[in-house]
């Protein structure tokens, strides 16, 4: 049957094509020499990298535009990004680039064992990177530092509970639960992956399938690295947790002319009353705001109270007195940057850029695993190392983009 012929791979079948040299199995039928195949692949991957650069250029352009138009928002909001985590991640990615470049060398010189080690280290670094990222993301999601559509950060209550999210910000129960427990949701797939790989390794060992065991063994380490990254992130943020207040205050300071130490204290005391979920009661909302408004330090809350009164008046149909402006309080409130249409835009761009970058990391992990399997199978040799080189180039580009993202997002002063 012709159909079956078509489907069965017969790489050697083209040897009798009339070529005056042998056609090794890894040389595709339409290429004449290994070098032609390598050059084609190399040009192809370079062109692909070009498309990647132009793909990212859209986001860099959006970034540049909004930073140019509203620099104060970028300065204010960048304070919420943890430079320490960013720097650690930069280091991790740079190290993974080193191991990747080394892997390319190993594939060219035919050092098979070392090649496996290098690819596995690159993979582990990628996982550490994602682990740290998980801490960063979940931390921000819990605080409501989100894109404008869902932004709910409140300096007075930076860590709202699930109930507060539902009652105050109108989130559905499920979304609110996800936002406050996002770290578990982000870790879960990796945990499943780890369990799966461990089981696979055990089965392979029991069944004495050496090849499968050889693949599963490094993958267990790779999966564990993710939790190493999570742990690293937790340790680094944990040491900074108590400095949260001053963190917020610093941002606050950038926004307006508050006495920032005082504001920080006020913030903390209010935060304390809020983080007790059992005593939560919607009526205390107004009480809390009124309490806040009494403090001279918080003009924002005061103005908000005014606005609220005005809106209540309007809603109750009381005729607005002549000459009084019906501005719904918007004009009167000092324009802080930690609002959804201000800081929200920064975080919108932040999530787009780092999110798309993280998706590229995930894609890189996918192809690296494929490389790992092939490396264990000893597929690569002096004449055929193209795939390692191509994946390496892609991986370096992902690193390259992070090299720019890190200072542009984390190091704004």
């Amino acid at each position, binding site marked *: 049957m012709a159909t079956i012929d078509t489907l069965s791979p017969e790489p050697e079948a083209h040897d009798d094509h009339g070529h005056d040299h042998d056609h090794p199995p890894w040389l595709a039928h339409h290429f004449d020499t290994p070098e032609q195949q390598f050059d084609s692949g190399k040009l192809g991957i370079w062109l692909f990298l070009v498309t990647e650069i132009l793909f990212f250029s859209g986001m860099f352009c959006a970034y540049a535009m909004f930073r140019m138009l509203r620099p104060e928002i970028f300065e204010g909001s960048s304070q919420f990004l943890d430079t320490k985590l960013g720097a650690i991640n930069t280091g991790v990615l740079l190290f993974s680039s080193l191991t990747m470049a080394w892997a390319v060398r190993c594939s060219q010189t035919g050092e098979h064992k070392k090649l496996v080690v290098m690819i596995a280290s690159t993979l582990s670094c990628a996982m550490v990177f994602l682990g740290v990222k998980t801490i960063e993301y979940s931390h921000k999601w819990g605080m409501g530092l989100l894109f404008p559509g869902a932004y709910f950060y409140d300096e007075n209550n930076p860590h709202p509970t699930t109930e507060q999210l539902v009652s105050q910000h109108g989130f559905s129960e499920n979304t609110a639960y996800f936002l406050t427990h996002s770290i578990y949701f982000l870790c879960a797939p990796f945990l499943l992956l780890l369990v799966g790989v461990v089981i696979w390794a055990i089965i392979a060992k029991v069944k004495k399938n050496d090849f499968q065991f050889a693949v599963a063994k490094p993958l267990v380490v790779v999966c564990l690295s993710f939790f190493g990254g999570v742990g690293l992130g937790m340790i680094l943020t944990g040491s900074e947790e108590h400095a949260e207040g001053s963190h917020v205050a610093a941002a606050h300071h950038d926004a307006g002319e508050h006495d920032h130490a005082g504001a920080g204290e006020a913030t903390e005391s209010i935060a304390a009353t809020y983080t007790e979920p059992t005593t939560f009661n919607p009526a205390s909302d107004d009480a809390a705001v009124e309490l806040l408004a009494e403090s001279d330090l918080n003009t924002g809350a005061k103005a908000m109270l005014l606005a609220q009164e005005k*809106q209540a008046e*309007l809603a109750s*149909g009381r*005729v*607005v007195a*002549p000459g009084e402006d019906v501005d719904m309080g918007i004009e009167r409130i000092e324009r802080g940057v930690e609002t959804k249409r201000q800081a929200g835009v920064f975080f919108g761009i932040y999530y787009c850029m780092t999110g798309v970058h993280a998706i590229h990391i995930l894609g890189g992990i996918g192809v690296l695993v494929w490389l790992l399997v092939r490396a264990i199978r000893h597929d690569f040799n002096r004449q055929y190392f193209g795939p390692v080189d191509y994946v390496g180039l892609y991986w370096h580009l992902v690193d390259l983009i992070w090299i720019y993202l890190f200072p542009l997002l984390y190091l704004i002063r």
Partner: protein
Amino acid sequence: MIPALTTMTLALPLLADHHDSFWFPDQASTFAAGVDWVYDMILYISLAFFIPMMAFTAYSIVKYKKKRGERAESQVTHNTPLELAWSIGPSFVLVWMFIQGSISYLDMRTPPEGSYDIGVQSQKWKFIMDYGGGTFHDELHVVKDEPTKLSMRSTDVIHALFIPAFRVKKDIVPGRYNYLWFQATIASEKVSDEELAKAKKQSEGGGTWDYDKYQFTPDGYRFYDLYCAEYCGTDHSEMQTAVVVHETQAELDEWIKANSSRGDVSMVQWGETLFNRRGCAGCHSIDGTKDGFTGPSFKDVYGSSHAMVSGEELLADDNYIRESILDPKAQVVAGYSPVMPTFKGQLSDDDIASIIEFLKTLSVNGEAADDAEAADAETSSTETTPAS
């Protein structure tokens, strides 16, 4: 505005009317002649290239069409001087076009000092012209030989203001102000009183004024068309209005005055006018139709209860209607999206009261409430000044 004669003109191009060129509508602004001139010049240049090229092609086809197998007379591969000549030669013409176009453009871009300023607010699917002092109208009225600047903003999506007779167009982009200016040169004529009276009589009870049918405004002026040229959704093609050019500033002022407030018409009638003029009719039907309308129908809405998006059940009384006009997103009827723009600062209390009166006439609940509430509404309208 192109007279109805146009159809005939096109059907019989040889009998074309002198006043109306083949390519363009009337030249009714200072820009028109210049733009048309540039257009004509490009047209002639294009034809000067196109006709010889096509003639040469036709000649080659006829002359060198040969039976299969015959050899070509020449196998010349190139002629660099000739090719350079026809590459570089046309560039000069292009430079000329660019310069001409840019000069006119810069004129059209820079409004002269002291232009008469009219605000334009566009929303789906209505233009609202702000003549200052709380006067809004959906027709654009300007003065002949007076530079007029339109400051335009949009509250929802991108629209574009296009007046073919003036050769001007500009997008109205939400989130920014865009400006447009022109100087009209031909005043709109006024139709005879008999004709106007006849049309008024015809259109009575027919709802909105049919500009296309009568070819003059309800005030009896011939007009130029004003279109929305940027696609903006369902009723994009209905987003048109009329431009009337007045002979003198005094005439315009008089017209503005006549349209600035209720004057001596009844509240119900004024409410209906506002309903049509201020864009309510674009989203709300008055006969209960729901299909094709963005907002709830106003039939029987007054005095009835409605479920809100927030889950509450609210009575559509005077207060609710007032709140809906001033702060539309506060309480939205279930099943509708919060898309209505606020009219805060744009309607006086008398205007709002008039609209409420008009809504009462549309509702079976309105009549009963009328007596009880009428006095209330009257007092509130006398006690307060416009909310702006």
